[in-house]
């Protein structure tokens, strides 16, 4: 079993299309255990029930945005160890610094290529294969 197959990933994005594309990219990288949620609140509900190893979350979302979601994940004892990669559509430096300060493991700018996504995940987990 490859490392990718062992990692449980939670995708959080408010856009259906983005969730599909993220899921598709993860599958291309060999991930098999993928769950998706539409916003931070839903993501948190899933995380507390069944913690995932890796969270890939959009920043700009209604209800609970990516930063609030990150804070919630980091402040809950059940979920705080999860790796957290935040997605940003605007490449906003202030946001990146805030995410880093709050304990995000990496940032992935949209639109990403499969290679960029792979690099962002491998920077956290090491080589996937």
């Amino acid at each position: 079993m490859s490392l990718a197959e062992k990692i449980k990933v939670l995708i959080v994005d408010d856009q259906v299309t983005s969730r599909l594309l993220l899921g598709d990219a993860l599958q291309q990288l060999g991930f098999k255990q993928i769950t998706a949620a539409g916003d931070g609140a839903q993501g948190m509900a899933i995380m507390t029930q069944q913690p995932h190893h890796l969270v890939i979350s959009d920043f700009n979302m209604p209800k609970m945005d990516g930063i609030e979601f990150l804070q919630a994940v980091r402040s809950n004892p059940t979920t705080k160890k999860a790796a957290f990669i935040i997605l940003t559509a605007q490449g906003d430096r202030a946001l990146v610094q805030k995410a880093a300060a709050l304990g995000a493991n990496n940032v992935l700018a949209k639109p990403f290529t499969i290679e960029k996504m792979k690099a962002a995940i491998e920077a956290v987990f090491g080589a996937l294969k």
Partner: protein
Amino acid sequence: MISDAAARRVHVIQGEYKVVNDPNVVLTTILGSCVAACMRDPVIGVGGMNHFLLPGSAGALASGGDATRYGVHLMELLINGLLKQGARRDRLEAKIFGGARTIARFSNVGEQNALFARQFLTDEGIKIVGESTGGEYGRKLEYWPSTGRARQYALTGVETQKTVALEQRPVPVAKPAESSIEFF
């Protein structure tokens, strides 16, 4: 009634998007095979437009290629821009324009682009309230975000050819400046 003379014209170029909440602004663009999605929240009168050309077979969302992700990105930037100005996602309505058939091209890129826009909006549950896509001639488009009114003029054959030629140039796509944010 909006007086055209008083309206401030804001041009949207390929790879770009604009969001406005000023009733005196008209968004304009010129489309060959490119597609422009115009979106607005009719309740608060905020609206915007993007303008893109996805190469190859980006029409199939399921293909998950780089072109598709770029198209989704431009749609997302427009939607995020609208939400930031107070629009509500469930109230958004869209019109799509462009995607003229290009002559001397093997695949119909314009049609693929229109297909992409239509499928994206449908998947996201955003109402399409107007559409004019395809055909052999390019379009000059005007869109009033506050009212949702759109007006288009057909380009002549020569103008269409010029526009399409310009669109095919490698353009610096709106990639985020910090696409490889390196820290940690």
